[in-house]
């Protein structure tokens, strides 16, 4: 049987000018400059990049345009941007700034018709619907908005199907319970969505070691994986990194205490993109192999 080529997508959570990382989408800590991470991931074989403005939805702040614009001038892989996109005009502007795809969550749940209209205006494959799922005590998965804070009561499976029928070209499914923990993706959640829709499904939230990736591709049925902490924590501790901590601290925005403390990263077995690709190929999971290239 033929298999899809797996995409490995570094996920960059952005707050103001900084790349941040939290746990359960909360408790954000500053890791550095998104441009530097983006460049590094591009050069080491990222298949796409996913940027999420993690505070835009709360404060209605659209600060990501400048960062995206700058990155899109020198990085030639697809860029998906999410966070605080409330209208067709917001979507148009971020695409104009250089995004190739947009991810919408809150706006889609409030007004599902925005998916249909956006798919008509910009093409289905441009519209990614992001679902933030929390497992309830009774075992059901429900969709939340605003980084897992706002209850909607919508069942994940049924919402994913509605989003697809309205024209979503992809679904990114986030396990809020696992996000930032390093405990592994929620494979049951990913499988629930992958079986419910015919569009590609990107798994997000939880990987802390390479075997977690195998699980979500196998048992979870994901077409692509978003990876954050494993990659970010590796990069900021590399001797050849741009000293991400220093550059972030200079701007004085956000909680940089974590970076300066030099603490270890708990459950995370950090690694590079080439290591992930090599691991996938060793498991006979098809992906675009990393080949060091002269960068255009």
């Amino acid at each position, binding site marked *: *049987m*033929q*298999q*899809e*080529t*797996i*995409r490995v997508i570094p996920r960059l959570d952005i707050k103001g000018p900084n790349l941040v990382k939290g746990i359960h989408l909360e408790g954000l800590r500053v890791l550095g400059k998104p441009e530097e991470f983006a460049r590094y991931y*591009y050069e080491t074989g990222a*298949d796409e990049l996913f940027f999420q403005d993690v505070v835009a939805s709360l404060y209605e702040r659209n600060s990501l345009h400048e960062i995206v614009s700058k990155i*899109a*001038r*020198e990085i*030639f*892989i*697809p860029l998906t941007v999410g966070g605080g996109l409330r209208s067709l005009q917001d979507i148009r502007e971020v*695409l*104009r*700034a*250089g995004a*190739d795809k947009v991810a919408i969550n809150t706006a889609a749940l409030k007004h599902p018709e925005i998916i249909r209209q956006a798919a*008509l205006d*910009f*093409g*289905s*494959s*441009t519209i990614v619907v992001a679902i933030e799922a929390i497992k309830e005590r009774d075992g059901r998965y429900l969709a939340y908005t605003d980084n897992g804070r706002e209850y909607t009561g919508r069942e994940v499976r049924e919402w994913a199907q509605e989003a697809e029928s309205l024209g979503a*070209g*992809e679904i990114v499914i986030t396990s809020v319970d696992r996000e930032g923990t390093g405990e592994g993706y929620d494979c049951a959640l990913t499988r629930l969505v992958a079986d419910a829709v*015919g*569009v*590609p499904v990107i798994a997000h939230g939880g990987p802390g070691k390479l075997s977690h990736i195998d699980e979500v591709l196998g048992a979870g049925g994901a*077409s*692509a994986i978003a990876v954050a902490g494993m990659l970010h924590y590796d990069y900021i501790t590399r001797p050849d990194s741009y000293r991400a901590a220093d550059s972030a601290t200079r701007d004085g925005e956000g909680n940089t205490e974590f970076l300066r403390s030099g603490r270890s990263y708990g459950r995370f077995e950090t690694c590079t993109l080439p290591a992930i690709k090599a691991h996938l190929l060793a498991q006979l999971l098809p*992906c*675009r*192999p990393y080949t060091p*290239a*002269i*960068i*255009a």
Partner: protein
Amino acid sequence: MSKKTIIVDYELGNLFSVQQACLHVGLDAEISNDPAQVAAADGLILPGVGAFGTAMNNLRNRGLEAPLKARVAAGIPFLGICLGLQLLMTGSEEFGTQGGLDLLPGKVRRIPPTIDMHRVRVPHIGWNQIVAPAGRDWEGTPLQHLRAGDYMYFVHSYYCEPDRAEDRLTLTNYMGLEYCSGVQHGNILAFQFHPEKSGPDGVEIYRQWGSMHGLI
């Protein structure tokens, strides 16, 4: 005076990234929806993401179809990307049968949802390999820096079926469906994948195309 490449703007698709790739390799590329500029272009790029029918309507309503076809007939270098490849065909089966630019004989079909009983995810999104059809190689084409099996970035729900085997420049296999992912015929070159989103190897295609035609 430097030669001008026009990126045809008909309000569908990501022109920004195509223009960035062009500028990166030194093409003097301008985004335009002006029929006069298309009629005077030294090189034409037709990008596009979205629906075939909407695209043809937009091209016609903006008066771009006639100058575009005339310019291609006059022999200037033409590069189509994604929907810009599909529009070259005689027609599409999307929402009934619709006529295309008819610059290359062939049809546009939808990727089936299942092949041999297996689910096929549509759109096809991601990196996939390109190879040359049997008996063809890429020497002397803008793909000459690539090897068979190199990866390019794809996003599409429809694919092309050119009538003439000799028009096919690249083939790609998605979940068992082998289809034509690149065409070349005279001054016409077009790809289903996005070279401007395919990393350094992809951007190099723009450079090769530009320098082969003296546009850089």
